[in-house]
């Protein structure tokens, strides 16, 4: 039952691209935060804790967007919203109060160090989630149609 639901509820098409970019940022942000906290936490604890928080949000968003169930959909919306708020708040703070951020985070200056992708990503995520609402019940017509269309042999 759970296995069945999993194969039906997996992301396809445009979501795969979004999930790929999110996965990339999840890995990048997690590694960066891990190294920062492990090697030089004392230098800028606030910035590094924010890095870790950003990394955790990327991980949650990656998983949530890839799972097409109503509950995960809500988690995905929450994660993307938090991410957008985070990049805007930290981006603005890092511009006006540079002293509080002696070392860069993913969200510093709206993600400039990452070609502003951190700013674009949550907007793209929210736009995608808005255009692709999840059918409420497992017996819904969208779920049934998707069930056949998405199942591939050997999965």
């Amino acid at each position: 039952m759970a296995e069945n639901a999993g194969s039906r509820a997996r992301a396809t098409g445009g979501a795969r691209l979004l999930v790929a970019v999110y996965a990339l940022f999840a890995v990048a942000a997690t590694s960066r935060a891990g190294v920062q906290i492990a090697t030089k936490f004392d230098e800028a604890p606030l910035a590094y804790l924010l890095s870790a928080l950003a990394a955790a949000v990327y991980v949650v968003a990656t998983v949530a967007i890839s799972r097409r169930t109503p509950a995960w959909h809500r988690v995905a919306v929450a994660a993307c919203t938090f991410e957008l708020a985070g990049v805007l708040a930290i981006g603005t703070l890092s511009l006006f109060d540079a002293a509080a951020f002696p070392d860069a985070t993913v969200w510093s200056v709206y993600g400039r160090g990452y070609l502003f992708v951190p700013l674009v990503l949550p907007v793209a995520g929210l736009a995608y989630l808005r255009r692709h609402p999840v059918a409420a019940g497992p017996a819904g017509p969208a779920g049934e149609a998707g069930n056949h269309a998405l199942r591939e042999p050997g999965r």
Partner: protein
Amino acid sequence: MNSVLAAAVVGLSLVLAAWTVVVAVRGTGIRNSLLIGLLVLEGLLLVQLVVGVVLVAGGDRPPSLVIFFAYLVGVLVVLPAGTLWSVAEKSRPSTLVLAVACLAVTAMTARLLQMWADARG
């Protein structure tokens, strides 16, 4: 870092990213020629790792050895992962996953170069 080699990696990864976008837009599917290009790029990345090891063994030191090697080794995983991902499902957005992987290689190599330049500067 060998800047000629790194420049080749950056150039080839950008070309492959553009190529992948063209493939996705035209919807022709991923052909062998593109896969061979990716294989060449992966080969260059392997050479880059060897060069990095040789340079460090020869006494050159980037600011952080751990991060330096994390990038050198980590960048090797990106293309195979992206290729598997985009081949698993034949659709345009899936093909674009490969473009993202190529651009990730560009970004990681640029960061490597930057690290190495900081060490010298």
